[in-house]
């Protein structure tokens, strides 16, 4: 019913359950749309005004923010407070207008100052002149004031004038010279005025552009006074703006309020309505259907909710367990899954953490990551998005600790280094740690084989997903021939490689598997081509793809390279910090170098690990099966920047 419209919309917005969809370009038969364009524009203009005001405020009186404040979650407010913000909004908007107006005035003042400075610069050469620039002739004497485009001294000028007009009688005073200008006043008997002018003109004499009736000195003083006055006014305006900074929080809230309103009005304009009822179409995640129904019943008993199957164009909402959820942002950064894709998040999450750990591979750094992210979550109570990002790094930290222990690296070789330094022993991490470790430097070849083997698993999992998708879509030929045979070939290669290390029998088995699958590929890959030769050539040509698999596999050698980089950099800084011996001064140096060095190592290598683990997911695995291109689910919600409603579901 129409009278419940406001309540229902407010409840929907708070709950963020539904993505509203309009029923089409125009309202359906028998319905009307409400035109909210003008209100919407008003709200948006207000929101923009508040943004502008905040911008000015942050320029003139920057908010004191801690370095870590970006982790902070939005402020929680009670839904009732919205009423207060709404009531205050008119006042706050006028404050914003005042701020913008003052800022505009300040811009005008600045322009005026520039103008004054220019005119002062023009007057500067005339400072010595004690008569006004527009002095007229006396009854007997002509006065000529102006500039010549060259430097003259007294002798040169007399000579130049005498040359031009030998009979001229004159008296002059040079006021100012610079390499390309000479300012002078020249007196001559009135009857000789014309010949004097002519003589002067031939050597380039020109009169000042804006002569005034006051002496230049007085004029300059006036201008300076004016400039000072303007500076004072400007300062006052600035003070006033700064004094308005106390409204900053209210302005933020007001901005959010108008964003909120404009969101609501956008939806309102998409409703089909008659005089008594209104209809709202939208997408709801299946799991939330019950909640939505309950909510609508609560808001308005006469409300009817009807669910149907989603159409082709439906948006996608990813849903994952606690372990995989942080990695969702990595998936959506690539692309939201399309309807026919499977959600790759759980697989991606596992490999993302795992590979990150292998590249960062230091138990000490991993522990720091776990602690730092844990503390940030605890102290700042960040919003969901930020919390997920922190969680992502926390899980990566766990994997990092694991691999750090495998590679025997705790802040590089710090434990062994300190042990040696204070006891004078000569021990390595391998001897110090009670479990067998893989040394990144000594066992590099071994780790490289391990990296490529892990890569093989990663790629096979990706292809397995493709296989599954094809089966689900009943494209059996694609599943078995295009994906299955390649998987078989790769497995054969793996068995062959393992056979080289362990048992010659496996070599034969691996070779047989590879040959069988290769023959299978030759026979099937050309199946869409015409003619027997076409089919055969297509099949043989497809074997060329093997190069792309080889390059994919080699790409995993970065697991070794980055793992080694972390270890070696840490070791270098440990070595440097140990150079100064165990004297008190040496210990201070040691602590400083140790802390700074490891900070650098963490920064560089965490970045490298993050980027490269992402690349392994995107390029090596996603290319095997993932299409993407879906539309993310964007529910009708409170898209506020500064506050969030208490108890509302986060978007």
């Amino acid at each position, binding site marked *: 019913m129409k009278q419940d419209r406001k309540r229902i919309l407010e409840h929907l917005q708070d709950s963020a359950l539904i993505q509203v969809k309009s029923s089409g370009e125009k309202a359906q038969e028998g319905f009307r749309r409400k035109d909210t364009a003008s209100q919407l524009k008003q709200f948006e203009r207000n929101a923009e005004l508040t943004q502008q005001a905040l911008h000015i405020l942050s320029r003139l009186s920057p908010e004191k923010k801690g370095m870590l404040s970006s982790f902070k979650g939005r402020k929680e407010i009670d839904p009732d407070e919205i009423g207060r913000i709404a009531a205050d909004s008119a006042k706050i908007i006028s404050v914003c207008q005042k701020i913008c107006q003052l800022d505009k005035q300040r811009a005008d003042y600045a322009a005026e100052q520039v103008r004054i400075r220019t005119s002062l610069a023009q007057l500067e050469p005339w400072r010595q002149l004690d008569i006004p620039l527009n002095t007229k002739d006396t009854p007997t004497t002509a006065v000529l004031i102006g500039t010549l485009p060259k430097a003259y001294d007294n002798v040169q000028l007399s000579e130049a004038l005498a040359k031009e007009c030998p009979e001229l009688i004159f008296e002059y005073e040079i006021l100012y010279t610079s390499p390309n200008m000479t300012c002078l006043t020249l007196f001559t008997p009135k009857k000789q005025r014309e010949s004097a002018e002519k003589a002067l003109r031939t050597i380039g004499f020109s009169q000042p552009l804006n002569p005034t009736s006051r002496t230049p000195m007085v004029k300059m003083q006036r201008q300076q006074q004016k400039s000072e006055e303007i500076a004072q006014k400007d300062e006052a305006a600035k003070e006033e703006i700064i004094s308005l900074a106390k409204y900053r929080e209210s302005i933020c809230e007001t901005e959010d309020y108008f964003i909120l309103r404009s969101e609501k009005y956008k939806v309102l304009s998409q409703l089909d309505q008659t005089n008594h009822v209104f209809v709202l179409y939208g997408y709801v995640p299946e799991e939330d259907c019950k909640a939505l129904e309950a909510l609508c019943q609560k808001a308005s008993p006469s409300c009817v909710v009807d669910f149907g199957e989603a159409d082709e164009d439906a948006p996608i909402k990813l849903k994952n367990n606690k372990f995989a959820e942080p990695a969702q942002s990595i998936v959506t950064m690539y692309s939201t899954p399309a309807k026919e894709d499977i959600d790759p998040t759980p697989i991606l999450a596992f490999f993302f953490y795992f590979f990150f750990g292998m590249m960062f591979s230091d138990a000490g750094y991993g522990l720091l990551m776990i602690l730092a992210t844990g503390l940030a979550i605890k102290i700042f109570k960040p919003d969901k998005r930020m919390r997920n990002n922190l969680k992502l790094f926390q899980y990566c930290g766990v994997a990092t600790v694991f691999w750090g222990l495998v590679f025997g690296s705790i802040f590089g070789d710090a434990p062994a280094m300190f042990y040696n330094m204070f006891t004078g022993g000569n021990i390595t991490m391998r001897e110090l740690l009670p479990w067998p470790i893989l040394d990144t430097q000594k066992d*590099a070849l071994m780790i490289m084989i391990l990296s490529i083997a892990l890569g093989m698993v990663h790629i096979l999992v990706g292809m397995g997903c493709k296989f599954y998708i094809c089966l689900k879509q009943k494209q059996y030929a694609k599943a078995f021939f295009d994906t299955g045979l390649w998987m078989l070939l790769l497995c054969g290669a793996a068995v062959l490689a393992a056979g080289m290390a362990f048992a010659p029998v496996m070599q034969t088995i691996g070779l047989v598997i590879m040959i069988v699958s290769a023959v299978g590929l030759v026979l099937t890959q050309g199946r869409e081509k015409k003619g027997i030769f076409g089919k055969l050539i297509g099949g043989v040509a497809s074997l060329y793809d093997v190069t792309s698999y080889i390059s994919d596999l*080699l790409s995993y050698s*970065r697991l*070794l390279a980055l793992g*080694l980089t972390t270890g*070696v950099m840490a070791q270098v800084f440990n070595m440097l910090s140990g150079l100064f011996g165990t004297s008190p001064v040496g210990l201070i140096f040691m602590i400083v170098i140790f802390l700074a060095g490891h900070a650098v190592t963490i920064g*560089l290598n965490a970045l*490298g690990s993050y980027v*490269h683990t992402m690349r392994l997911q*995107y390029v090596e695995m996603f290319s095997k099966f993932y299409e993407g291109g879906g539309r993310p689910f964007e529910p009708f919600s409170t898209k506020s920047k500064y506050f969030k409603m208490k108890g509302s579901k986060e978007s």
Partner: protein
Amino acid sequence: MYGMFLAILAASIATVFAGIGSAKGVGSAAQTAMGVLSEDSSKFGKMLVLTLLPGTQGLYGFIVGFLILINCGVLGGAIPTLGQGFAFLGASVAIGIGGMISGFAQGKAAVSGITMTAKDEKNFSKAMVSITLVEIYALLAFIVSLLVVISVPGLKV
């Protein structure tokens, strides 16, 4: 003695040439990034990531150099024979030249990636992945250098 000289020369080649590649790559990327930041300083995080991507070559070179130094008697290990010195030298050329030229190329890619991200921040992950495509060649060079360097002390030449 000549062996040690060759080993030190090798360490320098690996560090310096790969460093040149990274320095030029990061330099041009940083220039572009600062242009973007002058318009919108809120993109600093993303720009930093893209700018640092061509920086790994220098690190790889440095690591090869360091591993040579701890294996050639300067920071540990035995003094190498003449043959081992040549082996170090041969190994260092891979990451030196590979790192340098891939650094140049990655720098160019990073510049384009930065302009792409400046236009639309959604392009960030695509830019990042495309820039790391270049990296594989520095990596391969690094691994060749690495495998040789760690096996040199056992070589009987």
